């Protein structure tokens, strides 16, 4: 029997708190889960620094990847024998679902920002490079790794397959919304996924939803909206993210200045130089990063050690709402005052904007801008969701951006030195 068709003698199941069970019958999927590159995802948290706000949010990209695979498996079950669905694409879809986040690094978002990396490039590199994953995919068929890479990169010729894994209502989002809600413990984020899966229909180049399932989709959109504000954009998580980003900036800056670290940061060297190889990239997981943060707490550089202590011991920056348009002059004055007070403003006076975060809202958008969610009407016509749903229409036009100013309030309140300057800073910040 060809490797691509091989089945396990008995179905394997993973117990899962969101989907109850994740079912694996294909030998290829089972082998992929066992690779070093996929197991590494156990050491990358799905929600990055959110665990400092929601203590339950310790789940990993491993959990999420299995969840996305399981949802796609169920979608395909439903699509079998329906028009437009090609059964030959089954294994490809399952592999792409399982591996879609393979290139995520530790605290991905901050790392990418500071070291100018893109986890999607590393996903491609893992799929196509000298890796255990690549060897398994190659056994399926010559050219199969490239097909999986194309689906994940959204450049695969069959857009229906891409749409199952990545679109405005896809397996990726349906898993992470429910999983993140479960692990953070928030009460929003839940929706009737079973219903959505039942009313999803394959079309020539996209997945659509029967109009009768509109209310389940509304529920999904509302969950997405609430999760963004309550979990993903949480100001305390953003504070942790700001500090993390500043730690990485500081360490890189010190390296570039020729600073001698007490412990050689060997795992970071290639990142500081800007060219990590795949092997070096894969060797850096969150356990390693947190180990360095522990050691850097003892560094002679005051900024680096202070920031690391803040992160490790959760002594985060405080925030105030900030309007960059109305408060530009105040910001310029604060910048000077922070310097005068001995607080490097590049590290201790930080404006964080909602666009700094990697999450998106549902937007109907403009024609040809981005594919929206389409409802399939009984007459076979497609209509964009917000044209039929008052609920979605009403949240589509809302203001969804904000800016916050992050500051080390504890250092500003310490009046043992430069008290006059600090008092002026406090006046500007709090009136």
């Amino acid at each position: 029997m060809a490797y691509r068709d091989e089945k396990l003698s008995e179905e394997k199941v993973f117990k899962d708190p969101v989907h109850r069970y994740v079912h694996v019958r294909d030998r290829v999927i089972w082998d992929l889960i066992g690779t070093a590159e996929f197991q590494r995802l156990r050491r990358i948290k799905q929600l990055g620094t959110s665990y400092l706000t929601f203590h339950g949010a310790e789940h990993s990209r491993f959990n999420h990847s299995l969840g996305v695979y399981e949802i796609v498996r169920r979608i395909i079950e439903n699509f079998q024998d329906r028009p437009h669905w090609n059964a030959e694409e089954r294994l490809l879809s399952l592999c792409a679902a399982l591996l879609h986040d393979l290139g995520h690094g530790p605290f991905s978002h901050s790392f990418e920002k500071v070291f100018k990396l893109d986890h999607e490039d590393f996903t491609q590199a893992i799929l196509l490079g000298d890796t255990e994953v690549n060897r398994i995919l190659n056994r399926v068929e010559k050219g199969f790794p490239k097909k999986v890479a194309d689906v994940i990169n959204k450049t695969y010729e069959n857009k229906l397959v891409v749409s199952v894994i990545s679109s405005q209502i896809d397996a990726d989002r349906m898993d992470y919304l429910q999983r993140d809600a479960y692990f953070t413990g928030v009460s929003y984020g839940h929706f009737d996924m079973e219903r959505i899966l039942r009313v999803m229909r394959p079309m020539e180049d996209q997945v659509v939803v029967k109009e009768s399932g509109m209310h389940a989709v509304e529920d999904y959109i509302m969950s997405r909206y609430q999760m963004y504000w309550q979990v993903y954009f949480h100001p305390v998580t953003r504070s942790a993210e700001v500090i993390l980003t500043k730690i990485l900036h500081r360490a890189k800056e010190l390296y570039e200045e020729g600073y001698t670290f007490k412990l050689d940061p060997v795992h970071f060297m290639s990142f500081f130089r800007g060219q990590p190889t795949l092997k070096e990239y894969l060797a850096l997981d969150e356990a390693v990063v947190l180990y360095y943060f522990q050691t850097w707490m003892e560094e002679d550089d005051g900024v680096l050690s202070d920031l690391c202590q803040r992160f490790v011991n959760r002594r985060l920056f405080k925030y105030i709402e900030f309007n960059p348009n109305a408060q530009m002059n105040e910001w310029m004055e604060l910048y000077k005052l922070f310097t005068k007070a001995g607080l490097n403003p590049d590290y201790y006076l930080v404006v964080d904007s909602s666009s700094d975060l990697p999450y998106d809202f549902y937007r109907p958008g403009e024609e040809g801008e981005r594919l929206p969610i389409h409802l399939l009407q009984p007459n076979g016509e497609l209509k964009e969701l917000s044209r039929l749903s008052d609920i979605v229409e009403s949240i589509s036009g809302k203001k969804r951006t904000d800016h916050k100013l992050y500051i080390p309030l504890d250092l500003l309140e310490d009046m043992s030195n430069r008290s006059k300057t600090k008092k002026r800073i406090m006046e500007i910040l709090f009136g």
Partner: protein
Amino acid sequence: MLEKHAKLMQFFSSTEEIVGRKKLQKMIYILKKCEIPFEEKYQFHFYGPYSEELTLRVEEMCNLGFINETREEKKNYYQYRYQLTESGREFLKHYEMNLPPLTRHIEEMNGRSSRFLELVSTMLFFEDLPKEEISEKVFTVKSAQNYTDKDIEDGWKFIESLRSIH
């Protein structure tokens, strides 16, 4: 603060207006591929390269009053127009931008349809492939657009002319 926003504002300050979000998306991507250092991250989507970061940043600039967005109802969809406001111009004065002049690039692109810019940005997305493979890839991923060999040829000429602007 807001350096990435300021770069985008400089883009808007180089033209009277931009009509259409799709056009805006493709223009910034094409400029990035012409070595103009915009920092928005792009991914390939149904209609070619698309940046959620750009969408959010433009929304932020509108909410801050730096950009004016006008929504116009078309037959089955909305279209959006963008113009830099006086507040935006004032804000921009605080920044020393090192971007090269963009007026000519923008004029060239504004004169083309969003369908053509979708083609050009898609070609640029696959730029690392050999040239003949790029055409093949474009015909595959953009089959619904029915681009022709002539369109692709025009696309290459257009890219060349944009890149030769100094």
